């Protein structure tokens, strides 16, 4: 199993007390498969994604990536996991504004020590970014920036791709095209994809779906 989430609970402190966000969530994702995580706003989708990425720690339960429990790992080990194994696509792109598109595309691959200029050129062409490689993020539209963010993740060939609303800023046609590309590339390299989305239409295109409601898998 590429990703195992077992009985994970997570709460956040608020001004009014403790707010439970995840209440014993269990999920699994095999390599080469895709899983859509859907749910209403506030249902805990993004929180679960962050826990799976090692960006935050669960209160209880286990999260295993390639069989290794990441809950007990320190900051450096979790950083290494994200660098070497996981690819994150953020809803807000999180590109590096001072680097041009070419450098952003190559960035995570270089961090992971898997830089392959030919693959980046290929990805840029397939994502329709070849003409923008010398531009900076601020000179791109929202859809173009999201494509750069997806390209940056895929260029590093991660074993597990975690995508948080990757097409939320795109129009329907572009969103479909981008998701097609993601699914194809993930399948091509035998990676797993955990996709957080509001859209039932997009969710239906994944191999499996899980719906979160009030912090539980419905």
């Amino acid at each position, binding site marked *: 199993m590429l990703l195992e989430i077992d009985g994970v609970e997570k709460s956040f402190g608020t001004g009014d007390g403790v707010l439970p966000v995840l209440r014993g969530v269990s999920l699994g994702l095999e390599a080469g498969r895709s899983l859509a995580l859907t749910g209403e706003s506030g249902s805990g989708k993004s929180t679960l994604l*962050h826990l799976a*990425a090692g*960006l*935050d720690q669960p209160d209880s339960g286990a999260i295993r990536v390639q069989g290794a429990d990441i809950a007990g790992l320190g*900051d*450096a080990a979790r*950083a*290494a*996991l*994200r*660098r*070497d194994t996981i690819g*994150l696509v*953020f809803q*807000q792109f*999180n*590109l*590096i*504004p*001072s*680097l041009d598109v070419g*450098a952003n595309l190559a*960035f*995570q691959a*270089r*961090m*992971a*020590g898997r830089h392959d200029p030919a693959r980046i050129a290929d990805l840029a062409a397939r994502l329709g970014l070849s003409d923008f490689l010398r531009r*900076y993020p*601020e000179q791109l*539209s*929202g859809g173009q920036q999201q494509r750069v963010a997806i390209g940056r993740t895929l260029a590093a060939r991660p074993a597990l791709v975690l995508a948080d609303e990757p097409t939320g*800023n795109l129009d329907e046609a572009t969103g479909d095209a981008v998701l097609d590309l993601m699914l194809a590339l993930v399948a091509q390299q035998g990676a797993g994809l955990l996709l957080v989305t509001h859209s039932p239409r997009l969710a239906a295109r994944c191999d499996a779906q899980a719906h979160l409601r009030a912090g539980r898998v419905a």
Partner: protein
Amino acid sequence: MRRVALGALLSHWKRRPVQLAMLVLGLSLATALWSGVQAINAEARAAYAEAAATLGQDRLARLVPADAAHVDEADFVALRRAGWLVAPVLEGRMRLGGERVTVMGVDPLTAPPQEGLAALDEDDGLAGFTAPPGRGLAAPETAAELADAPLPVEPARGIAPGIVIVDIGIAQRLLDAPGRLSYLQLHPDQPPDRPALSTIAPQLEERPHDDAGELARLTDSFHLNLTAFGFLSFAVGLFIVHSAVGLAFEQRRPVFRTLRALGLPASSLMALLVAELAALALIAGALGVALGYLVAAVLMPGVAATLGGLYGAEIPGSVALRPQWWLSGLAIALAGTLVAAARDLWRTARLPVLAAARPRAWALISERALAAQLGAAAVLALVAVALAQIGGGLVGGFTMLAALLLSAALALPVILYAVLRGAQALARGPVAQWFWADTRQQLPGLSLALMALLLALAANIGVGTMVSSFRLTFTGWLDQRLAAELYVTARSDAEAEAIRDWLAPRADAILPIWYVEGDLAGRPGRVYSVADHATYRDHWPLIDAGARPWERVAAGEGVLVNEQLARAEGLWAGDGTLDLPGGPELPVVGVYSDYGNPQPQVMLGLDAFTRHYPDAPQRQHGVRAPPEAVHDLAAELRAEFDLPDANVTDQAEAKRFSLQIFERTFTVTRALNVLTLGVAGVALLASLVTLSGMRLAQLAPVWAMGLGRARLARLELWRALALAGFTALAALPVGLLLAWVLLAVINVEAFGWRLPLHVFPADWARLGAVALVTGALAAALPALRLARIAPAQLVKVFAHER
């Protein structure tokens, strides 16, 4: 991985070269002013050490007169005969070939071996040195200046500038001090069986060697003042660094988060950020040290003149490159950068990887933060007040200054916030309301630069008030003190007597100004004679006096002491008695101001003076004469006795000379003030330029609603003017408080005299105008950019909205 991440971090600067330039400029300027001052201090201290080492004062003990003004040559002979290994030294200041130098007479046969006398070992070296007219040895630069001296002066190594070493006999002739010595140097290896000093020369006492040198101690206050101003400039510069680094950290906060999310450990991120800051600090520090060298080179002649005029300290007018100075400049740049960035580094280290991706609300003001800032300002103000009550010397005084300035700087944003809120409430019309509200919103981004401006303006007002108060008091004091119309110095006692005879029928009064040097309350000082004449009774300003002070002084029943001595020893009128060198113990009957003199001084009635010091030179006189006759009288006097111009000085010339020394004294302070204000201007420019890039999102909606770019640009200019104007108003009370501390605390501790505080509203108006011009210049570039910005740039703000 780290290389890739470092590249991403550094790419920020590539995209924002102006911000990088401002950071480097701020740090360079801060380092420049600090290291420039340090270079001056290091150069001066090296000169003092060299002067102290010239005749081995830094390692050889000496025998000095316990009470008298000088050592008799007979004592030297008696001690040598008794087996003591002593060497005579006669020291005195005089004009040689038109240059004022310190002549040091030594006996080459008994003097301990030293580098300065090495030239005497050469062929014919000794004979030429001792046989009249003699030969002088001096530092190369001093020797070059003495080409017209009445004896040949040759360059030699190991002698401080401004000192000429001659044979003791030649020195006695030059200084007109036959049979007299200043002190006896003790060789380190004395015969153990020699008789006790008390049996051979009981009137002498042993004084241990002086590591630092008298000059170093005497000038400590001056250098501490310079250091304090250098530090103030450095602190103002650090505001720029803090502002620029803080902005860069905030702008890159999303990048930090992304880097962490993409697998960069927090420890690596911190290491990279510290390395980046260190590299920037070293580059800027190197530039700053180089710039500091230029600052020091420009200021050094003024400092040399000041130290020469005030303390008789000869230091070179140029700066040498010293490795320790370079290293300390780089170290202070590095330390300053890390201090300025400490808060941001700490925040970044604690940054949760899931923090909001948007830059934290850097420009949002928190009322809670303002309250905390005001609390800190109040605590610092209380510290300043407590220090004012407790005292604590010069360091306590400067700590009080630092607490006062920091308190004012912290309170400034709170005051401006309240003022701007008030202005907004009073504003009529939407544009005016938006203007004040928007100005308030800009406050957090500009507050550091405005604090820097406040400090610079307050320092200018404070130091300006101090200097102007000093000048006003000093000129008034000179008018009173230089009451005689003419001052005449004879070349010998015999000539002086002839001059007195010649003047008797031609002048209204001849006032002897005779003095002896000696130990006053443990410090070297002078005892002056004072004639019983209305000139003194009517003109001399006494700041403290008992009953009939002048009559008692004239009768030899008491002495007047200068303010420095009174404050140092607590010797005020009626408070106690003073031991005069080689003379009696007399009560203090009055205290007089004696600005510009760092040494203790005593006035003794003329009769008592001649009775106690019959051997004192009697060459200098003040001459009272009708003002209209002074010019002719001076000319006749010069012609009659063939006196050089310098020996006959009229009152105006004496005042001019004194004021010249005064002006020189504050040249460096004024220059540092101007430079500090320049640094504050750069701080404001840096903040406005960097903020201008972030302003578009705030300005675009107003532009879209119909406010043209040119008008927006004008409003930006007005905004800077308003903030600079408010800051200047806030700086006024701070500056006056600073002036009070300088005059009532620092001056008293550093120099021993207290001055009255005068106010100079015209100077404030001028400085206010400078503040407005600074604000306008700093805002000009961002405003111009805004006026010329393409509409597409503004439209893009809406295109990016999601």
